[in-house]
């Protein structure tokens, strides 16, 4: 059955080789049923082709304004235009924001020496400098000022004092220290 079907299909498709075709036609002449089947197949194919051509001839695409597809296309085109406008507005807003962020006027840089603590340091030790500035002072006399901008904190590092510099019996002016009792009546020797 399948073999016969295959032969009929290959013959009507024109896919048979010449020798195969001649053998098949001999078979068709000998077998009336096969001949009838082949004729029926040919008729069916011809009718189908004619029918397809006739349908195709009558297919006219409806382009009238009320046609569903035309309406749908117009609607999506309008929606697409709206989208384009939204995207354009979005892009402009974004660009404006970027421009604002990039080119906005920067706040005046805070001078580290203008903080109250720093002013105090400046008044009390005008010779002090920051480490980055060249100085003629010997390293052990430099005062390192480390300021933290924005928080107003200042840390003053003084070089460590040597034993030579420290005299517990002298006050800051070099005079011998005088110790008094807590009531200040008499000096304690």
């Amino acid at each position, binding site marked *: *059955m*399948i073999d016969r*079907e*295959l032969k*009929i*299909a290959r013959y009507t498709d024109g896919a048979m080789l010449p020798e195969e075709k001649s053998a098949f036609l001999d078979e068709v002449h000998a077998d009336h049923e096969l*001949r*009838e*089947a082949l*004729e*029926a*197949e*040919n*008729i*069916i*194919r011809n*009718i*189908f*082709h*004619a*029918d*397809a051509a006739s*349908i*195709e001839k*009558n*297919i006219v*695409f*409806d382009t009238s304004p009320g*046609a*569903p*597809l035309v309406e*749908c*296309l117009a609607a*999506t*085109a309008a929606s*697409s235009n709206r989208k384009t406008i939204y995207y354009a507005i979005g892009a402009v807003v974004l660009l404006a924001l970027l421009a604002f962020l990039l080119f906005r006027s920067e706040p005046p840089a805070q001078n580290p020496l203008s903080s109250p603590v720093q002013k105090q340091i400046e008044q009390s030790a005008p010779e002090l400098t920051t480490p980055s500035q060249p100085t003629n002072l010997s390293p052990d006399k430099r005062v390192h000022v480390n300021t933290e901008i924005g928080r107003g904190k200042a840390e003053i590092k003084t070089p460590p004092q040597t034993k030579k510099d420290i005299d517990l019996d002298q006050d800051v002016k070099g005079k011998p220290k005088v110790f008094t009792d807590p009531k200040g009546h008499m000096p304690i020797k």
Partner: protein
Amino acid sequence: MDYEKSKKTEAGLLGKTIVGDDAAFHSLFSLYNKKLTIFAQKMLGEREEARDLVQEVWMRIIELRRVPSSSLIEHVGAYLFRITRNLCLDKIRSAKEHLPIDDLPECDHPQSSKSEQTALEEIVIAALENLPAEDRELLVMHSYLGYAYEEIAEMQSKSPEAIWTRASRARAKLREFVRSVARKEGIDIVTKQKNS
């Protein structure tokens, strides 16, 4: 090779259609509108209904613009025929449920446009319309639209052997129907074929 190439081209057209390219949509429409209309008409047996149904298929394609992931569709032909087929089957089912074919108005009757056809043509076309939907769709795609069985197999995600077997049975059924009706009508199809 050409088939693979055209598949890629069509997938590209669909991709462009989805992102809003109306020219790509027009190309796709020109490629498939007639095929889909013939297919729908042979499945439904009615011209106006087929035309409306195919418009609905195209509207669904346009609506894909709202679903960007649909650009992954690779076989556009298969996709379009699948939508058309499903819509046709829905229509056939609902027509069976709600509206007997004899209740259709005369102008909408499938047979009304066939007055110029010969008796044999009428028999063949009626025989096709009486086949089960699955067999009918196969024969329409092969005989009306010129798709090879291998292409149909790929479109329907089935093996070529399965499609070939089904098509053979459908053709044999159709031929048998034609021969039996012809005998009943006293038409000798061998002589008829020779004369025509």
